[in-house]
């Protein structure tokens, strides 16, 4: 009946600083599997680590934002919302 059922959500992910250098990627359109519930940052993180195993060296230190706001693993990523992924900040 539902012939247009979506199995993946494409998420626009920007990477910064050491996360960018480890992956050699500043921006990636990541295909995140959809499992019958809204995509969360945890899903994005899992897809990102699968695609870029070298990010494992930053592991649980990686931080995420949806749009321009910090997000935690339960934050929902609506279709079209950009995500940023980066190491602990060190400005100043």
């Amino acid at each position, binding site marked *: 009946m539902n012939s247009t059922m979506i199995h993946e959500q494409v998420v626009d992910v*920007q990477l*910064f*600083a*050491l996360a960018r*250098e480890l992956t050699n990627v500043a921006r990636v359109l990541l295909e995140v599997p959809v499992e019958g519930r809204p995509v969360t940052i945890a899903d994005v993180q899992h897809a990102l680590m699968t695609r870029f195993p070298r990010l494992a060296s930053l592991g649980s*230190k990686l*931080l995420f*934002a949806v*749009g*321009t*706001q*910090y997000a935690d693993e339960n934050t929902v990523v609506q279709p079209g919302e950009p995500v*940023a992924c*980066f*190491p*602990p*900040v*060190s*400005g*100043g």
Partner: protein
Amino acid sequence: MPKLTEQPIDSQQLLCAVQTTQAGAVILFLGTVREFTNQRQTLALDYEAFAPMAIAEMERIEAEAREKWVLAKIETIHRLGHLTLGEISVGVAVSAPHRDAAFAAGQYIIDELKRRVPIWKKENWSDGSQEWVHP
């Protein structure tokens, strides 16, 4: 108002921007590129930002400071790119009717900036190595 810049930070401009006869106290904080960190020698720093979020986060920090203290004006500016020894990496200027508020707000803003604003620095050590600084 928060700003990011690739140009050298002008401390006089920061002071002028927060000046007002409503304020009896002005605080300026400048972060500069320091030569030694635990006996290791720095030649230069490279700063990178997630700019739109950095600006948004700096705006939130300024708004929080205004909720906590009675302030006149605030300027927050962070330099990006390649900085050599002694150059100013960050500037925070706050004016307020009373000095305790100016000091407390200035310290709050720089502390929160370093904790939350998505900017990263890479050390250029004197031995030729480079290293991202992660607290």
